[in-house]
């Protein structure tokens, strides 16, 4: 092992006390809460920006089918780059300083594939008869898109938002390595200070946040599918 800090860490970790509740109580409002808030902020902003990019691209790819394969190729390539590697590549670009910005760029890059794919799948799921009926009623293309297609595609789009959000909350922890903030700060500080309580606090909160977001968005997805609820009842 080349890193002497890690060797030291092993000695400290052999102490039986894993969670120091006193520390948690003392540092809750100073360390833990801001990290949690930072994490929510990072994830929220990234999903928001990603949606602003992915929705128009998804709508266009659903309409102009030839554009779809190259779009999935590029976003798929972005998605397959391991996150620590992508962050490292981003901060190597001249002019990109460490901090939240490269983390947000990486998180947006990771969400694009899922969001675009689900937008296209959602629009594809609208039955042609429904669109014909709307056209027969005299709706313009734009009206059909906003009043018929997008509302019907919404549950599948939200399913994409759900997967993207859970993925992003997980990857955002790694952003702390390049000073992006969030719950990863607790994990990396815990490793650096050889203090298991911080590691556990960060890891457990990040997991809880991901699972909470997953369940909330799942509830939203179900709520947006009233026809499925009727069928089940």
């Amino acid at each position: 092992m080349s890193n002497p800090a890690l060797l030291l860490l092993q000695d400290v970790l052999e102490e039986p006390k894993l969670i120091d509740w006193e520390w948690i109580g003392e540092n809750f409002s100073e360390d833990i809460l801001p990290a949690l808030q930072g994490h929510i902020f990072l994830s929220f902003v990234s999903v928001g920006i990603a949606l602003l990019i992915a929705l128009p691209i998804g709508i266009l790819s659903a309409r102009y089918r030839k554009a779809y394969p190259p779009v999935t190729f590029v976003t798929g390539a972005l998605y397959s780059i391991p996150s620590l590697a992508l962050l490292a590549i981003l901060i190597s670009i001249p002019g990109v300083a460490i901090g939240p910005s490269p983390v947000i760029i990486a998180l947006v890059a990771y969400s694009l594939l899922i969001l675009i794919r689900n937008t296209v799948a959602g629009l594809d799921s609208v039955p042609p008869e429904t669109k014909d009926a709307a056209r027969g009623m005299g709706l313009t293309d734009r009206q059909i898109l906003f009043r018929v297609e997008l509302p019907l595609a919404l549950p599948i789009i939200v399913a994409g938002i759900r997967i993207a959000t859970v993925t992003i909350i997980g990857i955002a922890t790694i952003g702390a390595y390049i000073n992006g903030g969030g719950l990863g700060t607790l994990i990396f500080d815990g490793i650096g200070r050889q203090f298991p309580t911080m590691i556990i606090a960060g890891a457990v909160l990040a997991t809880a946040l991901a699972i909470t977001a997953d369940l909330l968005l799942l509830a939203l997805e179900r709520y947006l599918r009233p026809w499925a609820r009727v069928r089940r009842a």
Partner: protein
Amino acid sequence: MLFKILEVYARPDFPEKLRQHIVLSLVALLVAIAIAMPVALMIRNTRLGAAIAINIGNIGRAVPSLAILALALPLFGIGFGSALVALTALAIPPILINASTGLREVDKGIIDAARGMGLSGNQILAGIQLPIAAPVIFAGIKTSAVQTVASATLATFIGGGGLGDLIVEGYSRRGPEILLAGALAVAILALITEIGFGLLERGFTPKGLKIAQKRRG
């Protein structure tokens, strides 16, 4: 810059880091398959079992990989073994979810027909359920493999070695060429894994299924 990056790859410790990365990913993947597949097979005929497996799998997928790796540190100490345990835990959910849904989604009519022809439970499993579910199972293994190669980069934070060592070294010593060399090596390894397992997935799709897929368009 390019020359400096290539110099990093010529360093005597590079092959060792690459080897660690591959061994970590491969062993974690194989152990995960050895755990997830028997579980998926055992629960293939029970609805409750499948529901439990899929829910556990979904929760498992929501857990951030850095969280699992970091939690392995206070529990199992630092080093390669600890990273291996964490990566194995991370590799299980996608395989478990795909194997149990793949096996459950085999058309009941086909199984009934096979039973009517006098095939035993094991014959149905080996001759019908597994081949038909194979593409879905392999898609799960592929997802898991790509994810494991990516997560193995984080092993460096708990002293597990691998190519992440180069990224950390480059970052902490402000050596942009080492940082980039590590990042590019990891990205290329992930890409090779993705393409390689994609080919495997195609290879494991039974001929009959491919023809059926083509006909359906």
